[in-house]
């Protein structure tokens, strides 16, 4: 019976699908590693996971294919994106090496590991395979369920314990107990006056006629921009826009243009006249 079911190759359609989607998966994985920003990495990883879901479906694991999309791309990757947003989208990775030559050593290790793994698989005599057809005969979900609730029932129940522990653990880790009462506005004002640091409310950001924006620092009486006027979040991200030089640059450009025009009219009126004659021809 098994001899009959053993096969040596898959269908051509599956081979084409494998080579195209396999390339996509590897590119996605590589960009997960090499993208500079965490958001891009997360999106590339989500793409790779969707491709893997298609591979599961192609391998006859229909239940796992759907679970892969629902759990991995639907829940886990969204959780990743959520944390990336929380931690800061703009925070790019530092490119400074703390251990000298670590990057090249890591690449070398990865290459060696990959060669070892591939050689191991290549050495194994895996020329024929059984195919999932007979195991899936009564339906993939039914087959998995009957295994899950008979042979693997203890593992399944322990999984429940693991999930509840993880949930409680996550809540404990991210929960912050308020150890003291939040201070009221009156108490904050009294503290400011007692310390004498900065008593009046913070100044507004600089509002120019053309730049009505909150990311522009307001000017002090002596003309220097004051970072105190810009929101703390923008200050920490380093997104303050400096427009103090723009007016001067505009003025300089205007003067240059005026000079050019004056030069043309004052020194070379003949040339301009000739040029206009040529143009009229």
């Amino acid at each position, binding site marked *: 019976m098994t001899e009959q079911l053993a096969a040596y190759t898959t269908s051509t359609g599956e081979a084409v699908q*494998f080579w195209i989607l396999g390339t996509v998966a590897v590119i996605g994985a590589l960009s997960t590693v090499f993208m500079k920003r965490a958001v891009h*990495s997360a999106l590339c990883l989500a793409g790779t996971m969707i491709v893997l879901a298609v*591979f599961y479906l192609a391998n006859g694991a229909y239940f796992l294919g759907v679970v892969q999309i629902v759990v991995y791309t639907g829940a886990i990757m969204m959780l990743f994106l959520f944390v990336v947003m929380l931690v800061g989208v703009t925070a790019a990775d530092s490119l400074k090496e703390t251990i000298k030559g670590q990057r090249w050593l890591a690449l070398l290790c990865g290459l060696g590991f990959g060669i070892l793994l591939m050689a191991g698989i290549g050495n194994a005599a895996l020329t024929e395979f059984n195919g999932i057809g007979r195991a899936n005969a009564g339906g993939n979900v039914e087959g998995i369920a009957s*295994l899950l609730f008979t042979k*693997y029932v203890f593992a399944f129940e322990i*999984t429940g314990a693991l999930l509840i522990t993880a949930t409680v653990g996550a809540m404990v880790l991210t929960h912050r107990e308020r150890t003291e009462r939040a201070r009221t506005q009156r108490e904050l004002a009294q503290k400011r006056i007692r310390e004498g640091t900065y008593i009046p409310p913070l100044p507004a950001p600089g509002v120019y006629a053309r730049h009505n924006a909150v990311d522009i620092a307001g000017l002090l009486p002596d003309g220097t921009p004051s970072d105190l006027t810009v929101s703390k979040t923008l200050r920490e991200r380093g997104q303050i826009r400096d427009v103090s030089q723009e007016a001067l640059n505009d003025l300089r450009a205007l003067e240059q243009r005026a000079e050019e025009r004056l030069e043309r009219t004052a020194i070379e009126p003949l040339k301009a006249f000739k040029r206009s004659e040529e143009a009229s021809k």
Partner: protein
Amino acid sequence: MNPVNYLYLAALLFTIGATGVLIRRNSIVVFMCIELMLNACNLAFVAFSRMHGNLDGQIIAFFTMVVAAAEVVVGLAIIVSLFRARHSASVDDASLMKL
């Protein structure tokens, strides 16, 4: 094509993930690379399940997914609380124990 090719692909993805863990500093990206390695293992399990003709491999892959979900929840909670404490997600900054 032989389904062994799925194993080669899984090995390649696992290698890429492992290299990423070694190279990257951002703890979130390191975590994503670990997820990639788990996914590569799942692909290998599913391919083995097909090659052997029984469903045990798929069951193991299912358990891997459950464990990965639990791991992601706890790991991201650790990263968030670490970020709260040190205002950085870089793995190099967590060096309080260093001499």
